């Protein structure tokens, strides 16, 4: 068929037009074979711009459209929809990226214009070989999975359940609650963390739409948006959840109380059978088999003897549950970095150098010191406390993290204020590089620490902390405003250690085929416009897994992720990407090579009758399940005869692009 191609060149205001001679591009591309229409406009993506495209499609009976504009990742969908409205198959549209790949990176106009023309030619060459495609349909399982049971995961699950959908939370530790349950007070209102979190935890466990899998991990994920199949490993609790009454006698009687308490950051110990904290949900303990005397030596069994409900089950095994989901929300949260690389701050050398999270536990009434502020070395009350900011944050030297952890300035102001409030005779000094407090009532909060509580803020990073023979600490700092070096005595030093994504995220991201950035934060589909979605369809991001954020931000993002998941679950059918692989049965050898490389198991083999010139026989040939095929194209290269091809990115199309570029 004779091609009738329309070319539309966008100025993008001056974004493109300042560097690319748009008129010249129009002029040159109009000469290409098959092009019957070429024009430029200031903003092709605007209503007027789209109307121009629609008009040309109708008037000139265009068979293909090339838009020379920004990245297809930005507006390909816009222009496809525009074409569809004008009666052209949406897959007959190709984009030449002359903004990100041309005008924004080149300065020389002639050179940029020439490159824009070449990219336009490649798009024309490709679109000439496009074929109309029709999206298929796939079903949606109306159930969501939330990975991680901290405040982000709980909020997301509550919101999804509220909309009437089933949702499961998978939490690795024995209880939901996450980092927030370890905090004492929260900024900027200083209300007690447990008081606002516990009701949410209870609500999550009571909600009949929500199923909690605690002490469980995601083991395997297959499928795709709308139809994920997930294996969940329920680790052996050694306690029968249906029998346990949560009376707590087992924990009391357990003779082995030497296991470091994860919940109290190792500041004290717990029993081998334990719930992480008093308000744990579910209130069912687990046996830590690495510390339990029964498991280590075979002798003991005290918990079993004292359990009136007979809930202790030493024989319990891990259990794998397989469940189907339409949407998956990742809310795996964070931990603080290990401080091995920061020996100068003497974290490993003195028990009185602690992290802020440890301070939270010390300040907490349920913590290892029952809420009394004291030194871990000699349990004496400190007189002088020093806070060091940015320990491991904003470090581009390979020792720490290059990003700002975002929450430390605020929680340090909180700690300083709480200490000055409760113990007015304690001197508090904060060494900072910058105080960063964007957020509602945040800077006011920090200023209160200085103005009302007289916290001593000194600009300048600390160089070293030295533990002295008398048990005190010397902080070697600098006051950059006074331009003086400072050697300051302290009884306790608190390090605002950088936060980092939960280390499990790498494994989880791989299972989900969701991309992560260099810092192991999950990547958004768009940094500004799609911040709670992963580029992988059906995967949503909630909380710090996407980037550092505080509680209010986490909760809002958790809600946003829930809405996106709900939006997906509300659909009965999903349109599938029509750019899938297709086998030409005339050329297919039936050799199975393609199936060996298909990550989705989308290729099967059937005996089909093949008819052609001089051929009529039954052959084993490849059949692609287009609902399963995600369009990666691995099979197309594996296929020796070229029988397997990818719609939308066919061999001929790509070769046409190559030819156009190398012409």
């Amino acid at each position, binding site marked *: 068929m004779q091609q009738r191609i329309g070319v539309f060149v966008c100025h993008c205001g001056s974004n493109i037009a300042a560097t690319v001679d748009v008129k010249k591009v129009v002029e040159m591309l109009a000469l290409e074979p098959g092009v019957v229409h070429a024009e430029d406009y200031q903003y092709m993506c605007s209503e007027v711009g789209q109307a121009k495209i629609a008009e040309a499609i109708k008037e000139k009976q265009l068979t293909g459209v090339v838009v020379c504009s920004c990245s297809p990742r930005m507006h390909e969908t816009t222009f496809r929809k525009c074409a569809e409205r004008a009666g052209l198959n949406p897959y007959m549209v190709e984009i030449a990226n002359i903004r990100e790949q041309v005008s924004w990176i080149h300065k020389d106009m002639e050179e940029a214009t020439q490159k824009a023309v070449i990219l336009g030619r490649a798009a024309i060459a490709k679109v000439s070989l496009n074929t109309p495609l029709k999206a298929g349909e796939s079903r949606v399982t109306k159930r969501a999975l939330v990975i991680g049971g901290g405040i982000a995961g709980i909020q997301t699950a509550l919101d999804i359940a509220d909309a009437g959908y089933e949702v499961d939370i998978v939490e690795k530790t024995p209880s939901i609650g996450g980092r927030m349950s370890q905090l004492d007070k929260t900024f900027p209102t200083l209300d007690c963390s447990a008081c606002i979190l516990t009701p949410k935890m209870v609500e999550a466990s009571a909600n009949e739409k929500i199923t909690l899998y605690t002490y469980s991990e995601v083991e395997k994920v297959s499928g795709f948006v709308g139809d994920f199949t997930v294996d969940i490993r329920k680790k052996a609790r050694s306690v029968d959840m249906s029998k346990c009454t949560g009376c707590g006698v087992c924990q009391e009687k357990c003779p082995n109380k030497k296991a470091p308490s994860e919940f109290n950051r190792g500041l004290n110990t717990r029993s081998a059978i334990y719930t992480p904290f008093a308000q744990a949900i579910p209130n069912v303990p687990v046996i830590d088999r690495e510390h339990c005397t029964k498991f280590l030596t075979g002798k003991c069994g005290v918990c079993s003897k004292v359990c009136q409900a007979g809930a202790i089950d030493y024989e319990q095994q891990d259990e794998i549950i397989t469940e189907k989901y339409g949407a998956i929300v990742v809310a795996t949260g964070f931990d603080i970095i290990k401080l091995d690389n920061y020996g100068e701050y003497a974290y490993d050398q003195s028990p009185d150098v602690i992290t802020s999270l440890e301070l939270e536990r010390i300040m907490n009434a349920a913590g290892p010191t029952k809420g009394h502020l004291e030194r871990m070395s000699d349990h004496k009350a400190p007189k002088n406390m020093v806070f060091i900011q940015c320990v491991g944050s904003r470090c581009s030297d390979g020792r720490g993290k290059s990003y700002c952890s975002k929450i430390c300035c605020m929680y340090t102001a909180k700690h300083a204020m709480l200490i000055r409030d409760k113990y007015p005779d304690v001197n508090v000094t904060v060494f900072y590089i910058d105080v960063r407090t964007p957020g509602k009532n945040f800077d006011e909060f920090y200023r209160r620490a200085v103005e009302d509580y007289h916290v001593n803020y000194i600009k300048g990073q600390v160089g070293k902390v030295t533990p002295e023979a008398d048990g005190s600490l010397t902080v070697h700092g600098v006051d950059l405003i006074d331009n003086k070096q400072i050697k300051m005595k302290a009884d306790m030093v608190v390090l605002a250690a950088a936060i980092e994504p939960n280390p499990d995220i790498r494994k989880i991201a791989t299972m989900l085929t969701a991309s992560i950035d260099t810092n192991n934060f999950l990547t958004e589909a768009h940094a500004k416009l799609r911040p709670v979605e992963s580029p992988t369809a059906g995967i949503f991001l909630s909380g710090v897994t996407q980037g550092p954020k505080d509680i209010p931000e986490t909760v809002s993002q958790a809600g946003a992720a829930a809405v996106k998941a709900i939006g997906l679950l509300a659909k009965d059918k999903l349109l599938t990407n029509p750019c899938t692989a297709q086998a030409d049965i005339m050329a297919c050898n039936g050799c199975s090579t393609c199936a060996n490389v298909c990550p989705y198991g989308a290729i099967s083999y059937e005996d089909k009758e093949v008819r052609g010139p001089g051929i009529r026989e039954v052959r084993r040939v490849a059949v692609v399940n287009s609902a399963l095929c995600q369009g990666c194209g691995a099979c197309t290269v594996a296929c020796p*005869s070229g029988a397997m091809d990818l719609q939308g990115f066919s061999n001929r199309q790509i070769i046409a692009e190559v030819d156009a570029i190398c012409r």
Partner: protein
Amino acid sequence: MQELINKAKELLANGTVVRVLGWRAGDLSYNPEPAFFETEEDLQKFVYDGFCGANLSKYMIEASKLDGKTLVFLKPCDTYSFNQLIKEHRVDREKAYIVGVGCRGKLDIDKIKEQGIKGIESVEGTELDGPDTLTIKTLYGDKTCSYASAMLGRCHVCKGKEHMIADEIIGESKDTKDAERFDAVKAVEAMSPEERFNFFQKELRKCIRCNACRNVCPACSCRKCVFDSNKFDSAQKANVDSFEEKMFHVIRAFHVAGRCTDCGECSRVCPQGIQLHLFNRKFIKDINEYYGEFQAGADIEARGPLTNYTFDDVEPSIVKERG
């Protein structure tokens, strides 16, 4: 040879097979060709001697489509190809009765001619149980040469005389390996890039695109070869031809990489004497070095190296690093 004919007769007679795939004397005595035999009479033309180098496994693709079983004679090296074809669902194991035949190396008439022997009429002593010295009848009288000196290059680097698959084995084999398989590849690798380029340019310049290599290759058994289809075509057909022309051997080698058993048929049949196995064997050597020893056709269950991976695979930059 008689033993093979007897076996064929027996299996035809008792109905186990309906045809026999073997070799038949050609127009020249040292040029036997693959052939199907359906009756006892046909079998009079059956030969099996040192010149029966052809790998019959590829013919089983067609035979698998026919009704009834086929008796096929496979040399040890041919069985790798047959296995590979099973793996790729191209031949039907149930339709084949495989008699593994012994091998003491296959002969190359050119190797005899290279020794200065001209006017050859026939060669004697080529049978499996024949002597170590060949007697060559020529227009100028009888000449002799050792069996080994007349062998195909591939037999000097033989993978072994064990049959990978067979229903029964007839005839004893003799080990012929007296050189290292990858020495020829290594010799090329040792050259400078300029020398390598000149070497291959000189080799490939001889190519007349007769497709003999493709036609004989058991791995090149696609129903429709990419070079004959328009799958990779753009609008300008004329240029496509030239693309294929230029890149034919590299692309062909890539298409069979990981599947090529190194049977050496391509080099044997090339009328221009291009050392085509140097391409395939290079891939095999690389695969062995980068991804672990792999012999296509040795194990039907093993995953092919190019349809497999490990997280820690070498990066393509290794090519540069190795220099």
